[in-house]
């Protein structure tokens, strides 16, 4: 049996589509309504409520908690202030990305880590000789993500403190003890709320109730996927193969190759993969992870040639699509789709460094009426969508 999340009693009756998706051994809604479109627009216009409980969560406590995390992740954890949240990948000893997630400093010696894959064993194995206690709290903590321009007002109305971007604080929402972080996976103004699983239903009710005047809607993973694509945010197993699952060398990626170089803090004396990353930085990565924009006129022409109006994907696709330049394949896109907001056909792609500079003309493979064609495209800067309210 698959697990259900602590919110299932609320989300199940709302899921009119009966479309569920698996996420880390749980079922969560793909969309609540029959199509996900409105759920997507709510992220950008009001506030969308996501159940993100399946994320793996670990409490790391003790004198050496910061040291352990610094050994594991690429960013500098010990330098983080209390109440700060770091987005970070972590690497194996060869400097290849194993996973990515967040580390929140709850107090001097207590951190909470979230991840996409289970990491208890990895943390424990790295903790040899350190004074640190690691607890898997995945099942014990329920998590909601409230994303969209109205998210701040909704939470403030039930007692959440003002928070800066990537900060976290304890709060009491409608009488329920929680921590609230200003984080999310949509590239919008957004918050994540962490509560004991036993309080999940009361929390859901409180947030939904408070959000009603602001047009809150529960939203599923299809809407989330469109938002994260616009935000240029990478997705494990889709945009990269985590090192633990790679079968062959070429499936591995370093943080530099995933455009996560900014998270690699080589000033730290020791962390997993450091030597390899120092060398790679000096050498320059072979691949880059970039945005790609398909040219509308080219797309339109391909369809016009077969007598059709342009067709667009209605949801974010997740597959490997070849990219060409100068007559040869120079990379591949791993996620893509139509941005209803930007009115652009966009994709996230791995390109050989030589062809990765913004503006580089490319061609993307498209299947148009059963035939493989190539549409004109170009490399662009990520994120595609970056509203000031995200950080304001």
């Amino acid at each position, binding site marked *: *049996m*698959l*697990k259900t999340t602590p919110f299932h009693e609320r989300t199940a009756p709302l899921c009119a589509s009966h479309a569920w998706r*698996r996420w*880390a*051994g749980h079922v969560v809604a793909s969309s609540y309504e029959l199509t996900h479109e409105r759920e997507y627009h709510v992220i950008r216009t009001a506030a969308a409520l996501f159940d993100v409980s399946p994320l793996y969560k670990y409490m790391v406590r003790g004198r050496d908690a910061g040291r352990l995390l610094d050994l594991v992740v690429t960013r500098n954890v010990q330098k983080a202030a209390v109440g700060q949240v770091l987005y970070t990948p972590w690497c194996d000893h060869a400097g290849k990305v194993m996973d990515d997630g967040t580390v929140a400093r709850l107090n001097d010696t207590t951190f909470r880590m979230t991840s996409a894959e*289970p*990491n*208890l*064993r*990895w943390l*424990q194995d790295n903790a040899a000789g350190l004074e640190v206690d690691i607890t*898997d709290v995945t099942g014990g903590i329920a998590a909601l993500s409230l994303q969209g321009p109205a998210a701040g007002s909704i939470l403030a109305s039930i007692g959440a403190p003002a928070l800066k971007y990537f900060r976290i604080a304890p709060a009491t929402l409608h009488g329920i003890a929680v921590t609230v972080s200003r984080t999310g996976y949509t590239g919008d103004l957004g918050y994540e709320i962490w509560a004991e699983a036993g309080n999940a239903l009361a929390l859901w009710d409180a947030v939904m109730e408070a959000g009603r005047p602001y047009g809150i809607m529960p939203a599923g993973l299809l809407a989330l996927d469109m938002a994260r694509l616009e935000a240029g945010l990478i997705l494990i197993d889709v945009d990269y193969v985590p090192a*633990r*699952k790679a*079968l062959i*060398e070429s499936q591995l990626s370093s943080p530099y190759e995933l455009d996560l170089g900014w998270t690699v803090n080589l000033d730290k004396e020791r962390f997993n993969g450091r030597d390899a990353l120092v060398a790679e930085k000096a050498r320059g990565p072979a691949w880059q992870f970039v945005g790609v924009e398909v040219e509308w006129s080219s797309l339109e022409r391909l369809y016009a040639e077969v007598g059709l109006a342009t067709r667009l994907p209605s949801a974010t696709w997740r597959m490997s699509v070849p990219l060409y330049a100068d007559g040869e394949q120079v990379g591949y896109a791993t996620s893509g789709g139509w941005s209803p907001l930007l009115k652009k056909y966009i994709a996230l792609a791995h390109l050989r460094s030589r062809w990765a500079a913004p503006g580089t003309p490319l061609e993307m493979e498209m299947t148009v009426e059963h035939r493989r064609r190539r549409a004109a495209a170009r490399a662009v800067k990520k994120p595609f969508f970056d509203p000031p309210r995200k950080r304001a």
Partner: protein
Amino acid sequence: MKRYDAIIVGGGHNGLACAAYLARAGRKVLVVERRERIGGAAMTEEVFPGFRFSVFSYVVSLLRPEIIRELELPRHGLHILPLESTLTPLRPDGKAGDYLAQWSDHDQNRRELARHSVRDAEAYDEFGLLLHRMARAIKPLLGVAPPDPASLDLRELWDLWRLGRYFRGLPEKDLHALWKLLTMSAADYLDEWFEGEALKGTKSASGIIGTLLGPRSPGTAYVLLHHYMGELDGVFRAWGFARGGNGSVSAAIAAAAQAHGAEIRTQAPVSKILISGSSATGAVLDNGEELRAPIVVSGADPRRTFLGLVGEQHLPDEFAAAIRRYKFRGSSAKVNLALAEPPRFICMPQPGPHLRGAISISPSVDYLERAYDDAKYGEISRRPYMDIIMPSMLDPAMAPPGKHVMSIFVQYAPYHLNGGWNDARREELGDTVVNTLAEYAPNLKSAILHRQVITPADIERIVGLSEGNIFQGELTLQQMFFLRPAPAWARYRTPIRGLYQCGSGTHPGGGVMGAAGRNAAMEILGARA
């Protein structure tokens, strides 16, 4: 007298596969099988009215995908049904929930493993991935005649060079891991990965199948990998239960052979391989009938072939000595039950998908090692390791409607039993198995309609496998690859010109795999495998 291009001695699945490939290449082939039915250890029989038993081997795990494709086995009736879970009860008696299950669904499996150990649940995928890579690394060895590193033969040197280059191309960490697998015991190897006793017990069991070794004996880690090889072809779905039992694997290969023109004769035991000078010229049957062919291929095991059918007088001393030293030491038995109702396991009392998978009585490495201790000194394990499947749950036609058949593979029952095997000891073995299993599923005893107990002595008598070794010789490192069955003679050829071997006693070894039969045919045809 009819003349043939090749005579195959023994209609085991390997002999049949060899015949099919030779016939497919246009050779006139005759298979002679001593029993009244083909299949050898891959055989289905209606032992009790309405109940069909896959009498000896019971799952398909290693059957080579290229054989399935090239011989078009699905067209000839092969249908492999998935067998996807393994249930390990944690203790006799106990209560509902006292089990460890391994499921095919990733999420379900992870959740179940985490119930026992979160660390094991996380290690599981990585372990699987490593074994997958290791299996891939050595897989190229399976489909070829193994080159002998001591040989000066040009072709072997060429093969050796290719293999050497291949192994040097492996990432360093894979080479290290491979070396560990080659040298360690299954238990030690698993200790590096897991903490759960039931998980380690169950996984280590595949390291001891068909050997007189315990999970703590060095070298058993490799055997684990040998059995993992089948999972490599996961996408091909070659792992499971053959509809109709393993006899239908043999039947499909036989049908392919016949479609290509091969002749198959049963009740035709060969008493002697004819040799003139240093060349094989044919075979003589028990009834005195002589069959002539320039090529004779033996699918019987090496001892039977060389010391029995050929005779030491025709063999170089050194070779005869190597064959005499080649180890069999059968240690496995089978108990096949006809059941009026399915078993109800205390740990999982409801009928459910667990009965469509394997049930493994392997609560810990200690349990297996203790079972081995008894066998080491010539006794039946007081509490044996058992690998159980319920064929009728997968293919209801194996039993009358509503009734069931249960196949129990048992270790250890040593061939060299103190005092020897007889009817009383056979029944004692049957009782030990049923009594042990009934501690986990108490309704078992009253459900039994018929019981067939097969000791290693029975395996030898019925199938002709020396000392009842299920793999035609122990699958241990000292007699694998270029050492199987004897140094310098691992490429299906023998010191007698025109005489070849194609059974499990040659590379790559035992199991319903067909590889030896196919490789031998390729060698005979002079083709590169």
